[in-house]
C-alpha cells in the first residue's frame, strides 16, 4: 500500500441522500485496498473495486467470524446482528452451512415466490388504500416500505396478522442500536425470543403451511433437521435480515425513480421495465449501509496486496456497483440495463438467501404503485431527503410523496 495513504473514517460521511461520496471513485482508482478506521476505533481494510469485492465475498478464507479475538469491532456499542451468540447458532461455513441453507432455501425458490405474489399484491393494495384514505402528502416509507416486508415475513413464518406490529417493533429495535438504547434493544430481543419460542411450540403442536412448521417437520439434527434453538434463531434471522433491508430499499427505489421523474414516466409508459428497473435500483443505491464485514482466517491476496490472517475486511458492494470498468455509464441510472450483475445481495455461497423474496417484494411494490398512484411525486426537493444510518442498513428517514 502506498505511503501517502490516509486513514479514512468508515462509514464515509455523506450528506447527499441519493448520491455516492466522492471518495468511492478515488478509492477505486487510487487505493482499492484501503486502511479505514471504524466507529469503534479499530482498523479494517476497505475494498471498493467490483472484482475485489466479488472475489473476497466468494472466498472461503473470508469468514463471518467477527467474534474472533483479533477481529475489528464495528462499533463501540456492540455489533448487533453481525455477531453475538445468536448469530453463532446458525452454521457459518462448509457442509453444515450448506445443509442449513438448503433446508431453508426451499422456502425461497422462484416457484414459491411466484405463489406468494398474489398475497403480496393484496398487502400492497391494502396499504396503499390506507395511504390514500389518510390523504396526500404521506410518507411512503411508513405507509408502504416498512409494513410490506414485515407482513410478508409474518405470513411466511405463520405469525398471526394481529401480531404483525409487534414484529415490526422488535425488528426495528434489534437493528437500530443507534436509535434505541442497548437496554431497550436487549429487552426487545428477550421479548422476541420468548414470542418465537412460543410460536415454535405452537407449530409443533399444530403445524401449519409455513416455514417454521416445515423446519419442525424435517425432524431434529439426527434426522437431518435443525434443533429447536436453530429453528427459532432461523426465524429471527429471517426477520432481521429481511425486514429493514427491504423496507429501506422500497423507499430508496421510489425516491430514486421520482428524483428524476422522467424515470417514473418511462416506467408508466412501459411497465415491462419493472424487473430491470428494480435491479438497477439495487445497483444504483448509494446509501446501502455498511457493506459486508469479513474476517480473514488465512492470508489472502486482494488486488495485488497481501492481507495477513486476522485482517477484518469491509466489502463495499455499493462502491463496487459503481465500478466503471464493469458497468458502462455506471453513474447513470439505466432502467433497462441488462445483464446487471450487481453485488447488492453479495456473492457466492453466502449471497442473500432471501434475494428472490426481496426482488419479488420490490417488483410488487413498484408495480402496484405505478398502477394505483401514477401521479406520484416527491413532496419535498431531493436535497431535503434525510439519510438514516443504522449500523447495518442505510435508508431514508422519510420519503414524503403526494399524488
Amino acid at each position, binding site marked *: 500500500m502506498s505511503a501517502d495513504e490516509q486513514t479514512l473514517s468508515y462509514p464515509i460521511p455523506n450528506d447527499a441522500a441519493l448520491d455516492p461520496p466522492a471518495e468511492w471513485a478515488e478509492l477505486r482508482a487510487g487505493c482499492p485496498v484501503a486502511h479505514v478506521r471504524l466507529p469503534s476505533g479499530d482498523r479494517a481494510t476497505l475494498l471498493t473495486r467490483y472484482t475485489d469485492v466479488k472475489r473476497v465475498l466468494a472466498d472461503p478464507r473470508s469468514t463471518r467470524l467477527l467474534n474472533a479475538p483479533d477481529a475489528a469491532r464495528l462499533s463501540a456499542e456492540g455489533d448487533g446482528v453481525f455477531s453475538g451468540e445468536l448469530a453463532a447458532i446458525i452454521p457459518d461455513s462448509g457442509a453444515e452451512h450448506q445443509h442449513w441453507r*438448503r433446508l431453508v432455501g426451499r422456502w*425461497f*425458490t422462484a416457484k414459491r*415466490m411466484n405463489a406468494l405474489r398474489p398475497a403480496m399484491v393484496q398487502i400492497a393494495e391494502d396499504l396503499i388504500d390506507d395511504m390514500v384514505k389518510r390523504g396526500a402528502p404521506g410518507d411512503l416509507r411508513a405507509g408502504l416500505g416498512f409494513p410490506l416486508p414485515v407482513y410478508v415475513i409474518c405470513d411466511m413464518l405463520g405469525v398471526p396478522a394481529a401480531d404483525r406490529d409487534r414484529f415490526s417493533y422488535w425488528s426495528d429495535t434489534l437493528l437500530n442500536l443507534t436509535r434505541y438504547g442497548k437496554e431497550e434493544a436487549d429487552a426487545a430481543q428477550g421479548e422476541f425470543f420468548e414470542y418465537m419460542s412460543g410460536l415454535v411450540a405452537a407449530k409443533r403442536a399444530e403445524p401449519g403451511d409455513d416455514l417454521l412448521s416445515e423446519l419442525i417437520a424435517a425432524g431434529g439434527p439426527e434426522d437431518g433437521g435443525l434443533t429447536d434453538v436453530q429453528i427459532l434463531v432461523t426465524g429471527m434471522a429471517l426477520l432481521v435480515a429481511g425486514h429493514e433491508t427491504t423496507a429501506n430499499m422500497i423507499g430508496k427505489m421510489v425516491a430514486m425513480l421520482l428524483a428524476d421523474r422522467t424515470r417514473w414516466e418511462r416506467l408508466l409508459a412501459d411497465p415491462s421495465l419493472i424487473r430491470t428497473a428494480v435491479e438497477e435500483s439495487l445497483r444504483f443505491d448509494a446509501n446501502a449501509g455498511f457493506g459486508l464485514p469479513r474476517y480473514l482466517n488465512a492470508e489472502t491476496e486482494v488486488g495485488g496486496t497481501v492481507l495477513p490472517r486476522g485482517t477484518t475486511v469491509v466489502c463495499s458492494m455499493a462502491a463496487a456497483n459503481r465500478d466503471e470498468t464493469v458497468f458502462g455509464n455506471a453513474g447513470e441510472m439505466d432502467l433497462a440495463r441488462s*445483464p*446487471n450483475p450487481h453485488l447488492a445481495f*453479495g456473492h457466492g*455461497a453466502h449471497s*442473500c438467501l432471501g434475494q428472490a423474496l426481496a426482488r419479488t417484494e420490490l417488483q410488487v411494490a413498484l408495480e402496484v404503485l405505478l398502477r394505483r398512484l401514477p401521479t406520484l411525486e416527491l413532496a419535498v426537493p431531493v436535497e431535503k431527503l434525510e439519510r438514516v444510518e443504522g449500523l447495518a442498513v442505510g435508508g431514508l428517514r422519510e420519503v414524503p410523496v403526494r399524488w
Partner: protein
Amino acid sequence: MTYDGPIGEEDTDMKVVTDEAKCCGAGQCVLLAPEVFGQRDEDGVVVLLEPRPAEDRHAAVREAAAVCPGAAIRLDEDA
C-alpha cells in the same frame, strides 16, 4: 417478423452446464429463463431442464449465467 428458415440447426450452438455444488438457490435463472432452469422443491438447488436451449432463449440464458451469484452456470457457445 417471423423467420421461416430451417429450425433445429441453430438449437445446438449453446450448451448449458450447471454446478449443483456451487448453486446457492437464488432463483435468478428460473425467473429469467424458466424453460431452461428449474429448482428442486426440497432445497432450491438448480435443475437443468434444457441443456441445449433454442436460440430465442439464448439471451435470457446468457443473462442468467452473468448474474448467477454462485457462478454455477457455464455456457459453451460453440457446442
